[in-house]
């Protein structure tokens, strides 16, 4: 089964929109989590949701490097298509 990046992006945006109660339209690849209003607890919860939704594991040191939505998509998409 193969996934395209668009699919990963839209799922990631959906998860962030739900956790932060934001309209999906407000979330772009360039958006930083900070701009979107996520505090440190939000980010931990969002990363956990990514792990559950995509059936992958995101190491803490990798999670720390994620600042933008696009970086999250890259990391997740990489893990999905291994």
């Amino acid at each position: 089964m193969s996934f395209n990046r668009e699919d990963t992006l839209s799922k990631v945006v959906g998860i962030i929109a739900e956790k932060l109660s934001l309209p999906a339209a407000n979330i772009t690849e360039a958006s930083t989590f900070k701009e979107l209003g996520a505090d440190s607890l939000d980010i931990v919860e969002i990363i956990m949701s990514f792990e559950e939704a995509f059936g992958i594991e995101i190491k803490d040191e990798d999670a720390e490097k994620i600042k933008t939505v696009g970086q999250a998509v890259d990391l997740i998409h990489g893990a999905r298509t291994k």
Partner: protein
Amino acid sequence: MKHRVAITGIGLVTPVGLTTQATWQQLLQGQSGLGPLPEEYGLHDYPVRAVGLVKGEQELLSTVLPTKYHSRTERFSQLALLAGAQAMQQAGWSKDVPTDRYRFGSYVGVGVGGLEGIAQAAQDFAQGGPKRVNPFVIPKIITSMAAGWLSMQFNLQGPALATASACASSADALGLAFRAIRDGYADYMLAGGSEACAIPLTVAGFGNIRALSTWQGEPAAASRPFDANRSGFVLAEGAAMLVLERLEAAQARGATIIAEIVGYAATADAYHLTAMHPEGQGAIAALQLALADANISPEQVGYINAHGTATPMNDAQETMILKKVFGEHVLPARLDHAVVSSTKSMTGHMLGAAGAAEAAFCALALRDQMVPPTINLTTPDPACDLDYVPNQARQHGLDYAVSNSFGFGGSNTVLVLKRAQ
């Protein structure tokens, strides 16, 4: 210098109504808020049939808490916010009213707390290991978080804490808040209680102590304080929050004074995990000490809101205790006797929230000179022979009212309230 303490706002979220007005109106009409255990609880083979759940509050929640925070708060914090908002609005306070915020605190009595969140987290951990424990679990479930949320939403920077004494939790919250203002430690307090743990686990827990009503008929008839056919309490949830302030300050700013709190005492039986002392010594002392604290005699009390859980033991014991403290003044044969009622007949037992809710009912009774009934009182029990205002609310001239709360672990808490002049 001792200040007099006024109640200037009351918020109620109960199985009987989502607001103070709705709850009080329903109580005066003898309406029960109790219903059947939801199907999804899966307790079909269990002898308990009734529960008291708050209904319809989810639509209102966004008015007190942004949607983003709904999943990171437990229900007991949500109900506390709804009740707190009502109380603050009635008292005329908002986030931006200037005052020394360090002298405005929030005390919220919580008996059990975030049990549902704990149970869910335990399941997640068992199934998925440590990485599956949500980061919001701990901040959600701890009992002080209701006070924390009230503090955040209303910008209260005085002490924010939970008090716990089982079924007396929020009576103690009110009592300690009363003292803080009376003795000059705070100018304003948002105090009361909240509880929302009526999940299947809790039903089983209380059921297996044999504390819950096993009435097999209509759920609205399951809570039968002082009735010969009582078999225990009905588990319920709810929140009651009150704004307290110095009487002079309330008068100076033209606030509506609903009633005054004039006395508080708390004792412990030092006897048994769940049973009351057979001679009721702790409860008798709490009543006498509270009356002394209020500087009044038993004969001045017009209404006693009983702990009245409807367990076979409590109601008989409490009757004996009231006779010991009030003597002939509480006997029905006496003209102008004090009347007693248990509003748990309609609200069920809201555990940590019960004490504050019942003190609020006393305040409203004093304001309206109307006493709420004990419903489902159809077959008198010889051991319970006082005037419990059976089945119908009654107009009754009142200057002072007393509220009793007795908790597991032997806690006995009594509050004395006075009519506003």
